[in-house]
């Protein structure tokens, strides 16, 4: 059913450290026929205790054969505890939440730009746009993270290897050294996509929007905010947007998490 959301508890299939900073958790859902749109998220209760109290939202990294996966890095106490869960442990989650990407599906030349663990919000989308002209620009701080993600992309064969552009800040290998936005700008000198999709730290997204809007390229971004409920009831994850020439408050969990770059009021 459209808009239906579920809460369920299931056993973790695996929860593995795939690189220096990244963990990949996979678990089965009983709702294996459900439609999940890329960009939607899952809200996980970390432990059956009160500290940490709130659920934690994660982009749905992948959904295949009734198995959900999330890619995450340790960012605080919640993700630290999550990283210690083992295969066979039970997790409690609510999904699929929010609205996914829209504009990207009506374009043919698509560039995807991610920063760090922001790749988690884009991976599943790649499966839906395989037949289009896509380029992925993924930036990482650490070489080890870059290698792990490249391996995952190669394994899934959802994007041609020559269309994957990776940058790392600290160590060199086959990858570009420096900011992913520099690599993007070098490529923009040669050609221009119809749309740029972004997911990553807010400062990166803001710069990305500046670059894209200067070249009149439309954008779609997956935004993050501290959430209370994840379903639009607590009004905790407010985002200022422009709508019909008016400034309005929207909720990242319910109205997003995907927003057009030109509707966001960048601070």
């Amino acid at each position, binding site marked *: 059913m459209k808009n239906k959301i579920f809460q369920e508890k299931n056993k973790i299939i695996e929860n593995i450290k795939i690189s220096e900073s990244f963990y990949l958790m996979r678990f089965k859902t009983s709702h294996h026929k459900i439609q999940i749109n890329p960009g939607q998220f899952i809200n996980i209760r970390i432990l059956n205790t*009160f500290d940490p109290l709130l659920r934690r939202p994660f982009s749905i990294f992948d959904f295949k054969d009734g198995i959900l996966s999330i890619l995450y890095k340790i960012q605080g106490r919640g993700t630290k505890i999550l990283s210690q869960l083992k295969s066979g442990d039970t997790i409690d989650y609510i999904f699929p939440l929010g609205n996914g990407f829209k504009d990207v599906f009506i374009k043919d030349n698509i560039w995807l730009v991610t920063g760090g663990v922001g790749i988690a919000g884009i991976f599943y989308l790649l499966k839906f746009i395989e037949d289009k002209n896509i380029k992925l620009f993924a930036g990482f701080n650490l070489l080890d993270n870059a290698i792990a993600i490249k391996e995952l992309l190669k394994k899934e064969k959802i994007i041609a290897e020559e269309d994957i552009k990776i940058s790392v800040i600290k160590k060199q290998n086959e990858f570009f050294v420096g900011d992913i936005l520099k690599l993007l700008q070098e490529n923009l000198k040669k050609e221009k996509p119809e749309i740029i999709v972004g997911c990553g730290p807010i400062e990166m997204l803001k710069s990305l929007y500046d670059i894209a809007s200067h070249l009149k390229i439309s954008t779609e971004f997956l935004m993050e905010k501290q959430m209370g409920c994840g379903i639009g009831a607590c*009004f905790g*994850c407010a985002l200022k947007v422009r709508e019909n020439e008016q400034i309005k408050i929207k909720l990242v969990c319910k109205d997003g998490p995907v927003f057009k770059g030109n509707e966001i009021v960048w601070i």
Partner: protein
Amino acid sequence: MDLKVKIGNKIFKNPVFVASGTFGYGEEFSKLFNIEKLGAIITKGITLNPRDGFDGIRLAETPAGIINRIGLQNVGLKAFIKEKMKFLSLLDTGIIVNIAGETIEEYKIIVEELDKIKRIDAIEINVSCPNVEKGGIEFSEDEKILKNLLKTLRQLTRKALIIKLSPSAGNLIILSILAEKMGIDGITINNTFKGVVIDTESQQLKIRGGLSGPAIFPIALNNVMEVSKKIDIPVMGCGGIYNSDVALQFFLAGATAIQIGTFNFVQPDIGPQIIDGIENYLKKHNLKSIYQIIGRC
């Protein structure tokens, strides 16, 4: 077994309500469980005009709790009646509308309009709002103003009127006795407790707002116990409820109904779970009515 409770002239099918600000306008949670099982839904606080809410950090997690500063973001009275009541009025459960204002006149207009809507069972008055006519002090901080506000609103409606009090805004016992004298039908004890989080790196205030969640439960329970001994009108216990055992403690302390708040975010169907827990408890103790445990401690 009888779980029905009466507040003012209204009978609710059970005493498990969901607190204002933690349940939106009901629709969001209806996708997750049958919200008609609840005794009542208390809506997000409604103001006369739409409000964008606070423009900054709105939420922070604290040990076993959260601090919020949402700033009363809401659609405003007109849109609430036109849009949100459409969904709410079809529900087979109690509908309590929480209201807030910056002036007595604003409260007055809201109550006059809500009074015309038959489907609304009760109005809960948030008095922890800054009074712009009196330099921004909260309505509950000035007994004279509060008395005037309650007297004015009481004359406007026969619907059950509930006042929601914050433990940070004055003496709960004195304010509750005053509300009872003014003809108010029920008191919600407690609104959130004032709290602060400081970011040690930047040495700046991260958030200053209302603390809620399991962390406040024992203090909330004590307040309910103290207030309910001093007044005869129903008290609604609110603050940190997370399972049926703590909910039962509120009834034993003197609450006629309970309001689940923050835990709705953690476990959306906590309301029905608590209703089942109360039923099992009454069965186990061979009791026929919830009233047999209210104030027993």
